[in-house]
């Protein structure tokens, strides 16, 4: 069950590195925790700052930061395209309903947060971000959720996605062979049952190795 084979079936799954683009700029070198805090600050500022000029200024600042990350413009535009369309539609609607000031504020606010988040995602390896999340969740060990278990769950989930995609492909082939490829029941029931069966045997394998307890 090689990853290359799965990628052949589903190009959307781009592997464990996710949407990261390698580089050496200051944003790449900054730690994931600091970047997450920065993103939260941007999000708060968008909520707090009122008026079109503040929103545009914030958008300009984030754009400058994004330009300094040395990302490929085409990739950034591709991940921004959906929110640009949304911002355009909502901006036009709000212009018509409530005037240009609100329209600019809402549209610029949307693009600002999504652009900042895209930059954080593209300059931070997802395994580093997950490590930071694990460290942030470390206090949960007092309520019975040790960080090791969190890390194990993340690893198990990432491993399971390609396997389940392959299962979904098999189930679809089986349904097609019976002429049922348009029946949601014939597609989803075997996929769900096999998911539970897979989880059960994974759990037995973990218990046999003394993991997860």
């Amino acid at each position, binding site marked *: 069950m090689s990853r290359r084979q799965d990628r052949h079936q*589903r*190009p*959307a799954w781009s592997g*464990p590195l*996710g*949407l*990261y683009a390698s580089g050496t700029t200051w944003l790449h070198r900054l730690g994931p925790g600091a970047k*997450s805090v920065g993103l939260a600050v941007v*999000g708060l500022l968008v909520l707090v700052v009122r008026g079109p000029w503040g929103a545009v200024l914030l958008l300009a600042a984030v754009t400058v930061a994004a330009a300094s990350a040395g990302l490929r413009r085409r990739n950034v535009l591709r*991940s921004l395209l*959906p*929110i640009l369309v*949304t911002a355009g539609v*909502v901006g036009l609607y*709000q212009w018509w309903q*409530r005037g240009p000031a609100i329209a600019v504020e*809402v549209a610029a*606010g*949307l693009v*600002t*947060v*999504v652009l900042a*988040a895209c930059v*954080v*995602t*593209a300059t931070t390896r*997802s395994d580093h*971000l*997950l490590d930071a999340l694990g460290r942030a969740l470390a206090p949960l060990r007092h309520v019975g959720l040790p960080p090791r278990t969190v890390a194990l*769950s*993340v690893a*198990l*989930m*990432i491993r*399971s*996605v390609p396997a*389940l*995609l392959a299962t979904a492909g098999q189930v679809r082939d*089986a349904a097609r062979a*019976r002429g049922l490829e348009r029946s*949601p*029941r*014939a597609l*989803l*029931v075997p*996929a*769900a*049952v096999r*998911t*539970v*069966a897979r989880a*059960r045997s*994974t*759990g*037995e394998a*973990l*218990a046999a190795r003394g*993991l*997860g*307890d």
Partner: protein
Amino acid sequence: MPVAPENDAVPAAASRVPVDPDAGGRALPVPVLRSSAATDVALIATFAAFVAVCALLPSIAVPNLAVPITLQTFGVMLAGVVLGPRRGSLAVLLYLAVGLAGLPVFAQGTGGLAVLGKPSLGYLLAFPLAAGLAGLLVGRARSLPTRWLPVAIFGACAAGSLLLTHPIGISVMGARLGMGVQEAIAAGATFLPGDVLKNVLVAVVATAVFRAFPDLLQRRP
């Protein structure tokens, strides 16, 4: 190999859970069934992956419905119903955390923190709560006769989506887009028909899963 439609739906059932044909299909006491923390971890992680697969698969085109629906909410509600409130909402939380960390597991192969800025953020935030509520309600309804189980599951899912997913999703969308209450509700209502359909699917699929693994319904930690 000729396979009847029902056969491949229950591949592991025969070997795992003996069913007494004389007892009207009810499950016998299972000889060895360790409900360990390892199994819980595996169930949570695998169902988080299942939600990701549901969101990634090409959407099912539904006749009489203009927009094709993705199965993301189907996976979320199924996790809640099958795993119960605690494990179900943990599975959905794991899915959200991995997606926010940048793996492309959200609908249309997107991922990363960018979803935090999108107007649809509220729906994502409501998912673990809705899955938890649906799992809780199904746990309450497990003493019902078997033939009422699908109806109970559908009701639990409808409660989860109508009480939590849509109100939270619509509020966040309205706040982010600067809309009034009525505008936001009108925009959010476009998701309702697909949602009803997906909850019907959850009821059908979860009933089949409970038939294959009856202990999932009986023990819900």
